[in-house]
């Protein structure tokens, strides 16, 4: 088994299964804070998937996308928690 087969048939399915589990928590999550945490973790898992894809297709340019996704994850979490804290309780 070469490295590319190993990455393609073992590592990527493990990451996809974890993404599906996180998506289940994102849909189900009892409070809105759970959904924000699940969204943050989903984007972080996407960084890992992009890194594995950059190895498989031998494209080092894909790492730029991973950097942008890391920025977006932090920014979205900060913005959503800020508005969650400032809104009026009903």
């Amino acid at each position: 088994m070469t490295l590319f087969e190993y990455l393609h048939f073992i590592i990527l399915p493990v990451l996809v299964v974890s993404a599906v589990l996180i998506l289940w928590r994102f849909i189900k999550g009892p409070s809105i804070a759970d959904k924000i945490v699940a969204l943050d973790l989903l984007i972080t898992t996407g960084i890992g998937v992009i890194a594995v894809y950059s190895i498989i297709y031998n494209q080092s340019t894909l790492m730029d996308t991973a950097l942008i996704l890391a920025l977006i994850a932090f920014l979205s979490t900060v913005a959503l928690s800020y508005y969650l804290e400032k809104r009026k309780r009903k």
Partner: protein
Amino acid sequence: MIDIIIGILATFGALFVLFAAIGLVRMPDTYLRISVTTKAATLGVGLVLMSTTVYFSNADVTSQAFVIILFLFLTAPVSAHLIGRASYFIGVKLWDKSVMDELRGKYQKNTHILKSVVDDTPEDNVDHTKMDK
């Protein structure tokens, strides 16, 4: 030999991301979920990015991957603290088997000021009774 190192790093990275996902599903409380995901997922993604540096092994990808790892290590605690603070203020309930809540009666709901002693204005505190089961 290089392939074996890449495989080991990617395996541990994917396993830690999977552990973070299982913890996110299995943990009973919002605060415990934040505590699980902010550590395990950061370590897992960091290991996967290390495997890309071993594979490409030039200065471009190495510096870029280290920038991503540094950014994740810097921002994961900050975002976890922000979302934990916001979820404490909006009154997310603790697990019913939680043994202590050190912030009980110290955060003021209207002014968002943390006091070091518990004062005698209970109507101003954040409501944090345990989960009703």
